[in-house]
């Protein structure tokens, strides 16, 4: 059935009247919840931890793999967080992006500043450049202001 103008103007509640489609939805939901989120993601996170150890053994930074593991372990919480960002309006996409930007600048980057300080100390001890990490740490705690600076430069 092709959706007509009347269908588009009515609010979409997401209800499924067909039993067959409802069964498909239930199977897919169970697959995502019980297989992907509950079992597959923790296993992949464990492999990320193993990869972090192997990265460190090769002399590379293990941080990327550790953060990927944390991301995989918290994927259900992230989904709920993103669902809370969905305004449901015609601007839902841009609202999501705006909320993601605020989450990044207000929550994630100040924590990343702490990782930058740790990395700077390690680089200093190993005679590697550490000032870029100090500058990045400063930028992480003031990235909104840098955005305002760009806006002021353009405007």
């Amino acid at each position, binding site marked *: 059935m092709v959706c007509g103008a009347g269908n588009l103007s009515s609010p979409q509640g997401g209800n499924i009247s067909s039993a067959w489609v409802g069964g498909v939805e239930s199977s897919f939901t169970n697959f995502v919840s019980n297989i992907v989120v509950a079992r597959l993601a923790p296993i992949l996170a464990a492999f990320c931890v193993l990869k972090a150890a192997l990265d460190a053994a090769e002399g590379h930074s293990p941080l990327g793999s550790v953060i990927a593991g944390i991301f995989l372990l918290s994927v259900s919480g992230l989904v709920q967080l993103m669902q809370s960002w969905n305004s449901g309006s015609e601007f839902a996409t841009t609202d999501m992006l705006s909320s993601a930007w605020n989450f990044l600048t207000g929550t994630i980057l100040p924590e990343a500043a702490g990782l930058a300080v740790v990395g700077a100390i390690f680089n200093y001890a190993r005679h590697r450049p550490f000032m870029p990490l100090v500058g990045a740490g400063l930028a992480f705690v003031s990235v909104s202001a840098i955005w*305002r600076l760009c806006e002021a430069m353009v405007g």
Partner: protein
Amino acid sequence: MNFANGLLNLTNWLGNVIMPTVAGLFAAAAIYHFSKGRHFQHLACAALASLMCSGLLRVLESFGNQAAWNNPDRYWISILTLVNWVGNVLLPLYGVGQVVLAVVHYAGLLERMTIGEAWVRNLVAAMCCFGLSGILRLGEFWIQHGTAGVP
């Protein structure tokens, strides 16, 4: 589970658990380099910085909080504050250290550290080896009693 909490706990674990532990390793390496007559100040500073990891982050945050979050000059002000801090706090402290070194050099003590008979260096290195734990406790004491200087 929350990604932000995971990242926060990772940062806290690295800064408050791992770095103070690694400080002992840096201090031991500094003592070894000192006993061989090599430059050891770099590793000694790294050990002190590892103990001060949390305080250094607070310093960066205080540099970044000198202006409102939407102030376009905030990054410039934070770099300006960093420069002022280096110029007005760190360099005078470094200057005091240089004055002390000048007096010690004039007294001829450091000649026994680097050239000729190195018995002073060996003696100090042995004392540091026996008292590494005490040196770390001393560094922690300085840092715990220096938190009043962090704005």
